[in-house]
């Protein structure tokens, strides 16, 4: 199946700084793609390039096969977007805001009711947007992005500034969109733990480069899991493990042992048996999956090390 987004060597420079540095992005159809990276990593610049709001310094971007620069309008017809801040005309109501976009897209008035329903904003639709909470403004932004029944929805930091309830509502909304609206969703965020909850695919941006990209399962497969062991005699247990050549660290009263991805269950059982056999009481034992944040830090550290090595 054709990718919803495909970029080849996409680059964009501002002055002497490469904001986007040769990224080859592939976003599969019907996926929820978490586009991750710290602030200033190049996520928003990439999104602006994908929407044709910026011209690339080199490389190209395609939306469902349409070149964004050469076939901007064909590509734009397939995309709905919420870029950076939720932009609205504050003096108009939510419905009037949507009406302006509806008119420009040449849609029927029923489109407004449909998207208000999707984002659950019908009750507030006739209130001036100036009085909306940030969460409501974000949802109105998503509603506007969905107006033209896009095949691809691009949401730039949609949970920025939201309170926990607003974040949860937005997460539920985004996670349901592929099934409800049949869209592919690209969500940029610097809050990795948040995206981990609903993304099917991930891409990690760092200093303008796409360090990793693929399904979430691939991200986690092959990552080093750890075994956390709670014991009554931490120092003695540490000595036992070191004595048998097992690398372990003391974190408070727990021991943390790094294990490969495939042998964690067996490893945990062996460690338990080893410690109990040496008279150490084990009160807790858990295989810990690395969080996305830990994976991200590890990938970024590796990339930085490689960069330093090349520079040296």
């Amino acid at each position, binding site marked *: 199946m054709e990718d919803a987004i495909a970029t080849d060597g996409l680059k964009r420079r501002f002055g002497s700084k490469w904001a986007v540095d040769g990224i080859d992005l592939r976003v599969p159809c019907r996926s929820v793609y978490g586009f991750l990276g710290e602030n200033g990593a190049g996520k928003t610049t990439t999104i602006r390039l994908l929407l044709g709001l910026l*011209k690339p310094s080199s490389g190209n971007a395609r939306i469902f096969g349409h070149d964004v620069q050469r076939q901007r309008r*064909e590509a734009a017809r397939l995309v709905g977007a919420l870029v950076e801040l939720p*932009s*609205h005309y504050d003096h108009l109501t939510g419905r009037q805001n949507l009406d302006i*976009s509806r008119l420009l897209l040449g849609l029927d008035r029923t489109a407004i009711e449909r998207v208000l329903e999707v984002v659950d904003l019908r009750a507030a639709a006739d209130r001036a947007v100036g009085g909306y909470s940030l969460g409501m403004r974000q949802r109105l932004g998503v509603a506007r992005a969905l107006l033209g029944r896009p095949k691809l929805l691009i949401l730039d930091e949609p949970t920025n500034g939201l309170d926990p309830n607003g974040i949860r509502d937005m997460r539920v909304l985004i996670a349901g969109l592929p099934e409800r609206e049949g869209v592919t969703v690209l969500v940029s965020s610097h809050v990795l733990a948040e995206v981990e909850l609903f993304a099917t695919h991930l891409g990690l941006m760092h200093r303008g480069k796409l360090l990793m990209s693929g399904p979430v399962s691939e991200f986690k497969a092959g990552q080093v899991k750890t075994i956390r062991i709670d014991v009554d005699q931490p120092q003695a247990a540490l000595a036992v493990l070191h004595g048998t050549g097992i690398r372990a660290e003391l974190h408070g009263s727990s021991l943390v042992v790094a294990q490969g991805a495939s042998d964690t269950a067996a490893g945990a059982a062996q460690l338990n048996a080893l410690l109990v056999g040496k008279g150490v009481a084990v009160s807790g034992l858990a295989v810990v999956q690395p969080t996305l944040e830990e994976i991200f830090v590890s990938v970024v550290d590796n990339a930085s090390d490689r960069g330093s090595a090349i520079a040296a």
Partner: protein
Amino acid sequence: MIVAVTAELLKLRRSLTLLLCIAAPTMVGVLAGVMLIEHKTASNWQTFAAGSAALWSFFMLPMTVTALTILLAQMEHGPRFWNHLLALPVPRWRFFAAKAVVVLLLVAAMMAALALLIPLAGRIAEALAPGRQLSGTLDVRAHVGLLARMFEGSLLLIAIQLWAALRFRSFVPPLVIGIGGTFVAVVATGSRQGAYFPWLIPTNALAADPARGQLAIAVGLWGGVAVIALMILDLNRRTFD
């Protein structure tokens, strides 16, 4: 294009822009009436109408165009709405052309309102101060023609202000241009070259020398058309943050 203009007009609902368009000509009408009551204007209809139109073209029109273009541009700049508009599957130039059409429509509407308000102000002043009767009758055709020529001549001024307001995200550059232009117009009133200064061109509709007036108005009209075309070309290629 009609859709883009309609969308622009829809944005005006409940906006300060409409309030400005009502307030500006009304203020000129009120001021003209007060001046008549205070006996500071000539006492026949033609001079009263011309004097009121001069009040408009010399000061209120440039300042109103400055404020109007800034308000219209800030509707997009303020909430960074360009990101949304320019990502739509609509040719980009239409948004800028629609802004120009709407500004011209609003200025034309203010001129039309002024055409009604000036005689109304005269009548009300006469009623409030019975000793200040205006002699003769108002030549409606000449009165409307004068305001129409002022509108034609204002195109260059409108185009320059709109370009500045759309090009800069901050409202300060177009405001400085507007205030500066109006101030220089006061200084340049007496000079020959002043006739072709964009902020002074509309006033040339009142020029004693008809040939000079016609030339200045033509410069304002066609200069305005050219600057609007250049503005659309420039903005079409620009990146908006």
